[in-house]
């Protein structure tokens, strides 16, 4: 017995509202983030992640309000990502009640930002988010490249190298999303997850592609992830967190019930 594997529902936030499944279904059925977060908490979510997809930075204040409201009522760890570019952005989110921030594009633009942030606020609250896409096979090995700006820009950086570098720079955790799998409902990119998990000593959260509960099991057992993140399977009410934990437990994975 020991540390439980974590299930993390992710809420995409646009202008302070939850938007469901924007990546693959054109449904923009908004919900109240506080109510949804409370529901996941009651079901036994181990953490909750918020990803701000608000296009205009002017509207980012709404996310701060969301975090403040959720943090006053939900007493589990909250991770906030999207548009975190400066130390002052991190401070603002932590002050609002976030426990961790995830940094993606800003880390690629300036890797030292991760070093500075973990030094100032502690590694425990710095998550580096990596969007990875299969590119080519070099020396008989699959390669994944790091993408930024929501998957639009290819940085040509090798994902494994990048993950190791970010761990050395003080990241406390890696949130790893497969661009190939995201939205497919085919399951995680297991090879990617396993390769990154084995390359770094910090926890890896698998993300992108979950369509059924067995995928969560695969991410943990085959992908060796410490935590699994999913959005749509929980949002649309197909499955609850309780269902997910039940399946994990049946497969002898340690979970918090």
């Amino acid at each position: 017995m020991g540390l439980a594997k974590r299930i993390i529902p992710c809420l995409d936030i646009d202008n302070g509202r939850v938007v469901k499944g924007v990546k693959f279904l054109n449904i923009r059925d908004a919900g109240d983030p506080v109510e949804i977060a409370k529901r996941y908490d009651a079901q036994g979510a181990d953490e909750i992640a918020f990803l701000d997809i608000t296009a205009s930075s002017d509207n980012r204040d709404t996310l701060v309000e969301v975090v403040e409201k959720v943090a006053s009522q939900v007493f589990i760890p909250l991770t906030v990502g999207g548009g975190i570019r400066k130390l002052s952005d991190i401070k603002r989110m932590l002050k609002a009640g976030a426990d961790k921030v995830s940094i993606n594009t800003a880390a690629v633009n300036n890797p030292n930002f991760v070093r500075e942030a973990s030094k100032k606020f502690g590694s425990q609250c710095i998550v580096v988010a990596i969007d990875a896409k299969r590119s080519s096979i070099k020396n008989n090995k699959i390669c994944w490249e790091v993408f930024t700006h929501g998957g639009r820009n290819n940085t040509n950086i090798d994902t494994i190298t990048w993950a190791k570098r970010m761990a050395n720079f003080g990241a406390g955790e890696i949130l790893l999303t497969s661009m190939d799998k995201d939205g497919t409902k085919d399951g995680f990119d297991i090879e990617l997850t396993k390769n990154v998990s084995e390359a770094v000593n910090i926890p890896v959260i698998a993300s992108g592609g979950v369509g059924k509960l067995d995928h969560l099991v695969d991410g943990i057992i085959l992908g060796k992830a410490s935590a699994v993140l999913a959005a749509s399977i929980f949002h649309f009410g197909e499955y609850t967190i309780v269902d997910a934990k039940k399946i994990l437990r049946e497969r002898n994975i340690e979970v918090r019930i």
Partner: protein
Amino acid sequence: MPKIVVLDYGSSNLRSVTKALETVAESKHEVIVSDDPKIILGADKIVFPGQGAIGQCMKNLREKNLDDIIRECINNKPFLGICLGLQSLMDYSDEDGGVKGLGLIPGSVIRFEENIKDHDNNKFKIPSMGWNEVFQTKKHPLWRGIDDGSRFYFVHSYYVKIENNANIAGSTDYICRYTSAACRDNIFATQFHPEKSQQAGLTLLKNFIEWNGDN
């Protein structure tokens, strides 16, 4: 109204613990975040939450003279340390090249051993991040209503090695068996974050609010 002061030593993230305390205090206790010695000395209870690196934490405490204030009020007020708030009570920490602690509970702070594998042959990750079981090694008013082995939220790379068994209130298994809750007289301190540990954590905070410091 009784006053609970959350020590503000310069960390940004005090909202979680303040909100959790306010929730269990139900307006019967006032929760104040402060670094003002007068307010701290006038408090009925003290909460010392800590996050990040211990070197910076101890430096901030000393710069604000909060180390002396803690020593002064720790003798007569119920005191709850969280995470670094536990580690900084020790004599010494290996983190940041070696840091002297407050020396209020005999013990030291050491890093989890690297490259240790679990029974599935996977390396244990550091930090230990997530929900782990806390075994109550001692009866204590702060455990009231909490099942033995309940899970709490942890995030840490260092842990405390306590010298006297009498100061161990709870233990947890990760890489090794270590102390996840320590106690001494009116002091209780946890490696885990009760403010992030849902019902079990809120119960512990409520127990603290109702605690008079006796064992």
